[in-house]
């Protein structure tokens, strides 16, 4: 073993300098803890030991910020300060609400590679969403592809393995305008990142034969250096395979791809800021065909009960996978047995490599021969690389030379708990601009279009914003039908062009039971208040499920937090508010969190004229939601179905334009961000779900980005039908009604609202079902392709379906 006894005599500063120099991403306190442990051992750590600890203790693997004790201070509008102490942010919010809800159908939460919920008596669903932000910023195709590949393996490694049946993808990019052609500070242009990420997800998902059924794409200047790439996978597994075990004496078996230098330091690199001078070795390139072969044979081995423990080889490679599996037992690994892509790798590189498409199994010795024969028959590598022991030590050797020998207890529980301070100050309320104010630069284009009402141009402008506009160019690249389960697809309507709210899958042809997947994301609201951003996206994810007719009593959600440097108290303050909102809303909605992940340090650092600069993303939360559908034949799509049907708006519209798409179009940062009263909205959702289950609703679409105006336009273009409506009939808050501004009514993004189409025959039943709820009939679907709206002041505004569709379809400039 190569020992570095000098390590034991280093000062705190020198230890931290060593951590920076080696790219370990460990703090001075953590280095001191390592020094103290090895002082007790009477020797310094080997390179491999230091690297193993760095991977295991990385933010990526240990979620140190969310596990930290946090002293949180908030200052309200009046300058009054409130303090709150979190012993463990995750346990005090996300995990707490799940524990309090005690849903018996949550079978495995926060302990495995994916959250597992019951589907029926025989089967369960495993769901996981991961981020792959840093790798995608550097090499978009490889980063996004391996992000999806990694989350597929998470589901394969949940319990004894679930069969992946659907993928989801959510991206946040910088703008694709002309500036997007230029290289960002991070290196690649936004367009390169956009095309690469979409291609990477497409090639990995399609080649593995897994449909990509749900997602979202968000464009904002904040993401030009640090794009966000969220990939999710839903898997189906027999209920009896959700438990796994590792017993002393089990063989450690590595399957799938071979090991190269790919992704060395991936976990620690993902736990730090992006900067210039990154090495190519951190980049991973996936091979979906290898993973497809491995998946098929792995599931066959599961059904033959040939192994009893499994995990994926992801961040940290073998060091994390074997370290996690052997946490309670101990493990002894012989690295010389690991199959390599090429010669020349040093032992620590083999141990830490994040080469893709690998899983690690715990195999009872008596099954090893049969397992290897099975894998060999499908031409998939399957190598016995060691044994799980009973001494609670991690021991790794290469040709008899021991390179790691340390206590599992220290490796997993030795990381010092962080004590952090966070701060949040409520920004001053700025009113939304008046109708006549116009901070936008004057352009020829705008002068030319003077003949139209500003409001008519606003709707077209909002529909053309890339975040709202059609994502058909992306969606069509994904196979969303393979496996033949997709009932409600990402694009719906007469020509399959409208944006569906949620995807619905029928898992077995013999049963009408199904499952629905949806998501919510809106980082722009974070600029106002991360609390209301989180409440809004959780509500949006739930709303999307409600809109298609999913069961409200079986909604489970996943959280994916992304943010900048949590050592900055203001950034941490935003994360704390997000987590608190998750607790507050999920408690009322009864939606347990079953899994999650955080990705921090999404900031880019550079040096200009000798001054260090940094730019970080806004605090971002993606909520992914899954639920059951009692009868897939009763699900509802969002496109208008028939002329003569009534149009209802459910929920109250309030003066909430802060962070709205209309605010972006008007180039203003004023207004109040949408808030949420979950007690009120939940009652409405229950009644709407009941109406949908009774077949009383012809179409339903949630109101989110672009508000009522965008929702109505999308329903119209998807159904190729026009409408007439009078916004004065909508249920409005008192201040909004007094102000009587049509633009605010049409484009407010108040939460908890739907646009619903009801046939004249179903009207009575529908109103009876929604009795006592905030429901207003505002108009009617009409033959002909004209959208006509009477405003608050009595003026009539009109658009043709074709011009609305043109704006919406051409919003994303997909040129290379």
């Amino acid at each position, binding site marked *: 073993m190569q020992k570095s006894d000098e390590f034991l005599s280093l000062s705190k500063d020198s230890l931290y300098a060593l951590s920076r120099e080696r790219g370990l991403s460990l703090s001075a306190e953590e280095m001191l803890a390592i020094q103290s442990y090895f002082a007790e051992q009477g020797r310094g750590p080997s390179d491999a030991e230091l690297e193993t600890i760095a991977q295991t203790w990385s933010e990526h693997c240990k979620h140190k910020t969310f596990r930290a004790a946090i002293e949180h201070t908030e200052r309200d509008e009046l300058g009054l300060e409130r303090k709150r102490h979190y012993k463990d942010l995750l346990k005090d919010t996300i995990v707490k609400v799940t524990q309090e809800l005690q849903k018996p159908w949550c079978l495995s939460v926060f302990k495995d590679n994916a959250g597992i919920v019951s589907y029926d008596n025989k089967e369960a669903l495993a769901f996981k969403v991961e981020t792959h932000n840093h790798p995608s910023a550097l*090499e978009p195709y490889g980063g996004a592809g391996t992000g999806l590949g990694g989350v597929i393996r998470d589901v394969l490694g949940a319990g004894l393995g679930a069969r992946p049946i659907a993928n989801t993808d959510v991206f946040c990019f910088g703008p694709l305008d002309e500036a997007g052609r230029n290289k960002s500070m991070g*290196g690649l242009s936004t367009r390169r990142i956009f095309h690469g990420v979409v291609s990477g997800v497409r090639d990995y998902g399609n080649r593995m034969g897994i449909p990509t059924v749900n997602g979202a794409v968000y464009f904002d200047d904040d993401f030009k250096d640090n794009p966000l790439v969220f990939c999710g996978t839903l898997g189906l597994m027999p209920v009896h395979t959700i438990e796994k075990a590792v017993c002393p004496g089990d063989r450690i078996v590595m399957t799938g791809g071979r090991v190269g230098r*790919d992704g060395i330091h991936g976990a620690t690199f993902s736990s730090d800021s992006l900067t210039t001078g*990154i090495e*190519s070795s951190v*980049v991973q390139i996936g*091979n979906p065909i290898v993973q497809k072969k491995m998946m098929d044979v792995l599931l066959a081995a599961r059904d033959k009960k040939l192994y009893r423990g499994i995990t994926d080889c992801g961040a940290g490679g073998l060091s994390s996978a074997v370290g996690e599996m052997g946490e309670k037992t101990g493990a002894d690994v012989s690295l010389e047995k690991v199959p390599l892509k090429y010669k020349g790798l040093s032992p620590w590189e083999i141990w830490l490599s994040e080469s*893709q498409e690998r899983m690690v199994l715990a195999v009872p010795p008596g099954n090893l021969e049969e397992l290897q024969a099975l894998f060999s028959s499908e031409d998939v590598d399957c190598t016995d690389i060691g044994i799980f022991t009973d001494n609670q030590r991690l021991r790794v050797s290469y040709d008899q030379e021991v390179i790691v020998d340390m206590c599992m207890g220290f490796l997993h529980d030795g990381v010092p708990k962080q004590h952090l301070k966070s701060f949040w100050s409520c920004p001053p309320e700025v009113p939304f601009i008046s109708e006549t104010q116009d901070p936008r630069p004057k352009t020829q284009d705008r002068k030319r279009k003077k003949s139209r009402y500003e409001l008519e141009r606003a709707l077209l402008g909002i529909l053309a914003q890339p975040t709202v506009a059609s994502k058909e160019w992306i969606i069509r690249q994904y196979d969303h039908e393979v496996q033949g389960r997709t009932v409600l697809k990402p694009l719906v309507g007469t020509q399959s062009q409208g944006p569906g709210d949620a995807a619905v899958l029928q898992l077995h042809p013999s049963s009408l039971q199904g499952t629905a997947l949806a998501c919510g994301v809106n980082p722009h609201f974070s600029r106002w208040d991360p609390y209301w951003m989180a409440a809004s996206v959780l509500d949006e994810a739930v709303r999307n499920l409600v809109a298609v007719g999913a069961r409200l009593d079986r909604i489970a959600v996943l959280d994916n937090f992304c943010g900048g440097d949590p050592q900055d108290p203001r950034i941490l303050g935003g994360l704390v508010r997000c987590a608190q909102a998750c607790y507050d809303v999920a408690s009322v909605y009864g939606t347990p969190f079953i899994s999650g992940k955080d990705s921090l340090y999404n900031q880019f650092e550079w040096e200009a004229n000798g001054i260090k600069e940094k730019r970080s993303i806004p605090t971002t939360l993606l909520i992914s939601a899954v639920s059951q559908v009692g009868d897939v034949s009763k699900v509802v799509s969002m496109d208008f179905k028939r002329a003569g049907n009534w149009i209802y708006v459910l929920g109250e519209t309030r003066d909430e334009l802060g962070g709205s798409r209309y605010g972006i179009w008007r180039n203003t940062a004023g207004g109040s961000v949408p808030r949420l009263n979950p007690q009120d909205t939940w009652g409405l959702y229950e009644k709407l779900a009941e109406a949908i289950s009774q077949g009383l609703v012809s179409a339903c679409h949630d109101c989110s980005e672009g508000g009522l105006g965008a929702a109505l336009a999308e329903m119209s273009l998807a159904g190729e039908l026009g409408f007439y409506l009078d916004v004065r009939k909508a249920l409005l808050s008192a201040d909004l009604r007094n102000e009587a501004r049509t633009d605010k009514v049409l484009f407010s993004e108040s939460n908890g609202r739907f646009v619903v189409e009801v046939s004249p025959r179903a009207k009575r039943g529908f109103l009876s079902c929604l009795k006592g709820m905030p429901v207003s009939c505002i108009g009617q679907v009409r033959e002909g392709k004209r959208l006509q709206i009477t405003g608050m002041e009595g003026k009539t505004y009109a658009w043709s379906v074709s011009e609305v569709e043109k704006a919406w379809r051409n919003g994303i400039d997909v*040129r*290379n």
Partner: protein
Amino acid sequence: MIYRVFVRHKKGFADHRGAALKNEWKAAGLPAVKHIQTGHAYEVCGDLSEADVRTLSGQLLADPVTQDYFVCEKDQKKSIGNDRDHSLQAQVWLKSGVSDPVADTVRLAAHDLDLPEFDQARSGSFFKFFGAPAPKEVKAFCENYLMNTLIQKLEIVG
């Protein structure tokens, strides 16, 4: 022996990527080029004769209906096609150590084609710029639009 194989569209088959790149070149504000030709490039290594490499190219790397190919030894650094056509060829290759699934597949297929002496492969792309552009313009364009310098390297052959 190390050979390089360049695969391109036959005459009469549209090179849409090349056409799109020509627009991109124009949008970048660079002096006009006549056109840009694109194709795939492979580096194959092993105890192989040129005839072996031609077998591999004709049966595996190129579609005989729509594509043709050009084989040369690596050290020759020849440009595909006519040497007097006032063009510059940019070759973009993955850096060593970066995973190359395409090359892995080529290696497996070569063994299936009964070429057991086939050792290694590397995949890449080539872009041929017609109209006598300056090498530094081609280099800048490639680095901005056609490659990721973190994982790929560029060779310009005149």
